[in-house]
């Protein structure tokens, strides 16, 4: 997993709970990297889970809530640094469709070692879109939060229904519906 995912995570932890918490969860997790991350490096994605579960233990906030919260932070980071990806889409659904077809394709070009999920995106009708998330890293909660954040960026309120297709969360179905308002 790309270093940027870790550095941003730790930044969020620092912003929200202070550096002591960063220090705590690094110290409490058994990390191959010893908690030393640079955004251009690449690290085992399992370290991410160790950090998140340490944080969850410490703060007593459930892991999925933390992941969603982190996703919100990451979404803002993407929006700030890769705005072009947002600008080329006319609306939210178009943007979501472009993750698999364009955004992650571009990411893979820049970072050949990036580990990315696959999305099967299918537009059902004008107001509904289905995204099937597949990843051995099982980070569908991160995806959930990223979708939520995109909705705020596009100012298109939505409702997200999430259902596991594979018990273990490696294949997850999202049904995203536009909400008038």
């Amino acid at each position, binding site marked *: 997993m790309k270093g940027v995912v870790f550095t941003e995570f730790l930044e969020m932890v620092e912003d929200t709970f202070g*550096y002591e918490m960063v220090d705590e969860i690094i110290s409490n997790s058994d990390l191959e990297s010893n908690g030393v991350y*640079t955004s*251009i490096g690449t690290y085992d994605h399992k370290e991410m889970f160790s950090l998140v579960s340490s944080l969850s233990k410490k703060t007593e906030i459930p892991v999925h809530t933390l992941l969603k919260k982190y996703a919100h932070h990451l979404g803002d980071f993407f929006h700030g640094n890769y705005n072009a990806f947002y600008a080329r889409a006319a609306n939210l659904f178009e943007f979501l469709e472009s993750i698999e077809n364009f955004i992650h394709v571009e990411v893979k070009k820049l970072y050949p070692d990036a580990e990315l999920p696959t999305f099967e995106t299918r537009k059902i009708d004008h107001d509904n879109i289905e995204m099937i998330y597949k990843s051995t890293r099982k980070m569908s909660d991160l995806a959930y939060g990223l979708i939520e954040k995109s909705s705020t960026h596009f100012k298109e309120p939505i409702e997200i229904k999430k259902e596991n297709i594979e018990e273990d969360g490696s294949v997850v179905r999202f049904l995203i519906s536009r909400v008038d308002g």
Partner: protein
Amino acid sequence: MDKIALLERRVEREKKARKQAEKILEEKAIELFHVNQELKNISEKKINQIQSKFENSQKRYQNVLSNLNLGLLEQDQEGYITKVNKVFCEMVDYTSEELVGNISSNILLPDDLTASDNKKLIDRNLEESKIYDIKVMRKDGTLIDLIVCGAPFYDDYGNMVGTLDVHYDVTKEKKLQQELKEAKEIAERAQQAEKQFLTNMSHEIKTPLNVIVGMSHLLNDTKLDAQQHEYLDILKSSADILFNLISEVLDFAKIDAGKISVVNEEFDIVQELNNIHKIFKIKLENKPVSLQTKIDEKIQHCVVGDKKLFNQVIVNLLGNASKFTEEGSIICTATIVHESETHIEINFKVKDSGIGIAEDKLETIFQNFEQANESISKNYGGTGLGLAICQSIVEAQNSTIKVQSAEGLGSTFQFNLVFEKSERKITEQDVFVEDSSVNLVAGSTILYVEDNPLNSLYLSRLLDKWNLRYEHAENGLIATEKIAHTKYDLILMDIQMPVMNGYQATKVIRTTENPNQKTPIAALTASTLGNNLDKAKDFGFSDFLAKPFQPPELKKLLLKYLKHDIADDSPETATVQNPKVKIQLDENQLKQVFGDDEEYKKEIITMFLETIDEQMSVLDNLIKTGIHDDIRKQAHKLKPNFSMVGFPELTDDFVILEKLAKSNDTIENIITHYSLITDKVDQLKPQLKSHI
């Protein structure tokens, strides 16, 4: 303490992260270096590849150029040669070393080349490409013709630095062109000479032919048996044919040279047609072919036009018709198409029931030397020039001859001509001079000037025959001596004579004091081409007679200038003008009116016959009084009766009479039309009588 330990840990982590990042960056830099190196190798290879490709194509291009034999020459702004290719060197036979560095115009342009040629080179400095041809001098001094395409070329900054000229050697082509031109000129000159020869020969032939024709006429007057008469006829007709052939060749030479000129004079077109009619009537005597000439009675005035050309066309068309018609009829008609105060357009038509012309040949019959098929010239003879000449003549008068024909169904040739109308009315009667019917008044003396002994013999025999006194002079000089002493009534003057020709002699007669200064002089000339009365008059002649002439022609001339006894002439009325128009009872018309009711029909016709004379005499009187309105009323009253009894044609005639009266036309015109009606009424009476 805790805080410091925390910060130390943080700094430691950050430091490590930085080192990690730096290591990654260095790795990445090395990676980038290698990639870059690889990229360079690739592009160098690519460039080499491209370059060799470019060189190949350049080589190919040059190969093409040298295969095309294009000579290339580059020169700078001042005209110094900077580069030449092999082909160019070969063209001018210099080596590249001899050329490069020299001023192109100095070494390559012959000194005596006109400034204009050099100008082309100077012009080239204008910054545009140009194509021009030029003569260039080879090393050995010989000249070659080159086509040059010059284009400016530029340095990297876009400044013009010189020109690149592409040369193509066209010396051979130029030479060929020149030879072709010369060959064409020679051929044209030869053709011209041939034509001239033909013309000259024709003239030469005409003179002896004149004698043959003349002598055969004289022979005719001697005592001959039937056999001899027959031979003589053959001799005469052969001479006629020969004469016509020669005339055609002469005419053709004239027309082909575009020399056809329309000479307008006043002439009586009706009389002309009647005369032609008589000639052909005689020609057709021995064939079961009827000849009719129908002339529109409304042609009342003489016309202004070219009489000779008109004659020629009609004679030719009738000649063809008689040639190609073995039995049946030939009809020549002249019909008014349009008439105004000043002009008249007449349609002339010659229709025969002869062999006709196949459809696919119709287009070519007007071409020179074309006859509908080769067997024609075998069977009928002729030069094949007649129709071409006719067409040219008619075209010279802004019209065309049209032909309708089908094989075996006869042919119709027709054309329209527009004439100016003249004041003079046509002659109602045509004086046809029969040879025996004229008595020239004895006592007239004629001088004929003629060097040819045969012609002289011919002339003297004729004059003897007519009991005329004459004297003979063998050339112009002798004539001028004779005229000083004796007063003649007429001088016949040959043109081409030794010692003094006819022109000179006539000039002497006219310009010196002598008793014959006013005596009429007629030129005897073999050239029909120059036969123009105005021209003859310019030379002092009063008239001319074309050789060979027939006795009646000479007689006509003599009658014109000598006193003669008209009382003894027996004028023959022209039967052709105002021919009796035949009318025919229209049985169908009668059927339509009466159906099968014979009784009723009889009744009506009887009544018509009982009243018609009285009605006509009323009309007759009205016409004599000349009151238009009364004439109109009577015509109107009478007109339906004729349709009733089967003569709708007469009803139409009355409609015209009515119109003439209504439009206050001249009484003469009304009378003319009326006489046609009375003619027809006279004809219909017996027909009706016999019908009932």
